[in-house]
């Protein structure tokens, strides 16, 4: 009985290895994705329709870089998709990113949203803004991120945890602009003003505003678009308006989602083809319409909903420099015990 089982298991393991050996035939491209499959699938489908190249994907919220490091030169992955600048840089700093350039990429993506040597490319932008209650926050009350540390906001602010990459990006941006000491003081001020312990994602803070838990929250812009498109969440989105902070003082913090092509890529030609497609007009339009993100390609308009929030001045500081300050940002979050809440 036991021998039978062992044989069966051995057979199963062998079959498992056989079926999961990465297919390396022409006509495929393998993607490790930090971005959610639902957001990316429409783009991949359009790419496959147009080129016949099949896209295989592994999605994880964390750990893909460790997987790439362990796999080394044997890695089947051709490309990494990230939703955050610091992730794009991590891959480059680990020496895993290939230097890729092409006329199409240079034409599609403005210089500030790509690495000069082509180790990473930004594909979409998102701004980190203040969501404010229509009912309880008069227009003009918040104009700067710094306003949120003022005592008048006591018990009125909601946010996701301070050590989430989106908040770390914002805090790193503030360190870049104001220095570590001022940013530490800001974190302590915001912490004292929180309505509850930091929790949830950007969307659940807006739900909190709608319910009267708090009056303002921090969030990425595309959440607004997604909530408006969801019948159940529309009421939350309708209870708030967006404030793009620091319009006269350096600009609103923006981050990019983007991609690295990998050195070890077994299908480098298809990876380049996919990257060019993602930065092209058709894909940029899908990003804009379906995901409510800002396209990087000049000439592709934001969706009607996104455009309705108005034009804004984005922080022009180098994204790479800001991402380099994320470690310092995390240290400040820990030192101020931001996640303990008010």
């Amino acid at each position, binding site marked *: 009985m036991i021998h039978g089982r062992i044989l069966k298991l051995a057979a*199963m393991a062998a079959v498992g290895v056989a079926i999961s050996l990465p297919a390396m035939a022409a006509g495929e491209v393998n993607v490790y994705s930090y971005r959610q499959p639902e957001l990316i699938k429409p783009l991949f489908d359009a790419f496959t329709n147009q080129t016949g190249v099949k896209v295989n994907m592994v999605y*994880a919220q*964390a*750990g893909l870089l460790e997987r790439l490091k*362990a796999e080394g030169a044997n890695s*089947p992955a051709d490309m990494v998709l990230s939703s955050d600048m610091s992730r794009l840089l991590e891959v480059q700093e680990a020496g895993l990113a290939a230097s890729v350039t092409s006329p199409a990429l240079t034409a599609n993506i403005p210089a500030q949203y790509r690495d000069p040597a082509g180790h990473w490319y930004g594909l979409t932008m998102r701004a980190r803004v203040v969501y404010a209650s229509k009912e309880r926050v008069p227009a003009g009350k918040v104009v700067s991120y710094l306003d949120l540390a003022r005592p008048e906001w006591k*018990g009125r602010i909601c946010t996701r945890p301070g050590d989430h990459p989106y908040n770390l990006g914002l805090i790193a941006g503030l360190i870049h602009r104001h220095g570590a000491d001022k940013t530490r003081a800001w974190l302590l001020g915001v912490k004292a003003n929180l309505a509850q312990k930091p929790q*949830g994602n950007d969307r*659940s803070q807006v739900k909190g505003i709608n319910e009267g838990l708090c009056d303002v929250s921090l969030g990425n812009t595309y959440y607004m678009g997604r909530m408006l498109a969801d019948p159940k969440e529309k009421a939350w989105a309708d209870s708030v308006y967006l404030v793009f902070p620091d319009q006269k003082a350096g600009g609103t913090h923006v981050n990019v989602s983007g991609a690295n092509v990998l050195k070890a890529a077994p299908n480098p030609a298809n990876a380049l083809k996919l990257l060019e497609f993602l930065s092209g007009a058709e894909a940029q339009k899908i990003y804009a319409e379906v995901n409510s993100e800002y396209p990087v390609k000049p000439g592709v308009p934001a969706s009607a909903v996104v455009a309705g929030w108005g034009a804004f001045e984005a922080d022009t500081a180098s994204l790479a420099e800001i991402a380099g300050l994320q470690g310092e940002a995390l240290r400040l979050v820990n030192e101020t015990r931001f996640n303990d809440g008010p």
Partner: protein
Amino acid sequence: MTAAPRRIASAATLAVAALVALPILSVAWTALSAGLGPQWVHLWATVLPDYVINTLLLSVWVSLGVAVIGVSTAWLVTMCRFPGSALLRWALVLPLALPAYVVAFLYTDLLEYAGPVQAALRDAFEWRTRRDYWFPEIRSLGGAAFVMSMAFYPYVFLLARSAFLEQSHDAWEVSRTLGDSPLRAFRRLALPLAWPSVVVGIALAVMETVSDYGVVSFFSVPTLTNGLFNVWLVMGDRAAGAQIALLLLLFVMALVMVERRARARRAYFALSTRSRSAAPVTLRGWQAAAALAVCAVPVLLGFVWPVWRLAGLAVGYDGAAGPDFAAVVARSLGLAGAAAALTLVVGLGLAYAARLGLSRPARFAARIASFGYALPGAVLAIGVMIPFGAFDRVVGGTLRDQWGITTGLLLSGTVFALLSAYLVRFLTLSHGTLEAGLQRIRPSLDMAARTLGRGPAATLGRIHLPLLRGALVTAGLLVFVDVLKELPATLVLRPFDFETLATSVYTLASDERYGEAAAPALVLTLAGLIPAVLLSGLLGRRAGAAEPS
């Protein structure tokens, strides 16, 4: 006992321990080779003490929760008859089918400020803001302890009930005849006899607790595992992450030691092979009502309400299930089945080797083999990834250089890597359960069989396996359900386009898209229900056979 079987048993134990130790050593090597950098000093000065304290507090609360719920309900449904006791006997296992992170998101949806309970209270009392009243925060250490107690108490319930069922009727009768009240007989006789099993159950629950990522990250409770994820996988500091992982491992080693000592102090053997249990007492009046309440509450809070809510969410959400949904279900079941079979075989081998007698190093190795359960899934995944990746590089590189064969990955990113991770992680479940089962079989039976000329293998096949049938089924199903629910390792190690039920539920729920997550979560729960019901049925049949007619 002859030397040969003992040598074989020791060698096999060492081999299994080496397999389990490999990922742990990879992590340890990463941690120690890096030294203690400035990051470490910063962590100690800021968040690390919190991680440690929160992990300890959560473990204590969950231990108390699962012990009280598990033992009291197991005792009541086994030894007493009251309205609903027959139904509750199997229903008490049901929460095992629900992943803890699903229970967590459902209770958050119910109890948070924007949820229906607080909204109704605000309406009723005309409170306007959060500052007008006090309400317990579900996303807190207490909330996590509540959710985990509800999710993990079936471990204690199952093991305690199994132990109560195996207790001899005679001893109980003697105790009662000598004038002990049922409560005193329980305290002085039944509980001590069942104690090794109860401790194993609590240990399993605490190991689940310390390695949990889903609930603590959702509730923002800074435990060691949560911090480890942030430092290692989010911030990319491999060395500091590995160092936190080592700390976690020390915590678990202490836990295993406590468990071993508790078991060793209470090495009782059933004196009778008669499997007749004590006659149940029929409760009436307020006693029956109290027993019903004690046993019904965990089922209602841990299963009935969550499933009812999930069904509501799933019906309310009109999105279509993906076309390959059936493939996802089949893949999840196949993976869990294969992992359960593998883990059972290895676990039985380990437990039996220990019975045959082990050399000193092998005894130590057997202890090592049970540490995998406490490795957080993602750490384990990386621990598997590092040696497998190295193997692929060496073998792949040799093949390429010598013969020009391009292999790509041989082990990493395959189902084999996943199964290895599951084996390392869940070996304790089968090993612990089977070891406890074997401990209840008198060594004199082995001696008798061996005196009659049977070898160790024949003794195992003819004597132990039939007596262990219950423990084998219990162990196999525990692993099956856990693999079905396992997340972080599956997320990180899976091959391309390899979606399981757990990965799709988690991806959606962590984005708070509860409506979309509800349908796959419901399927996951139903799939987990099958083994849970089988398990209850099996225990029930044994109870039926054991009852005096």
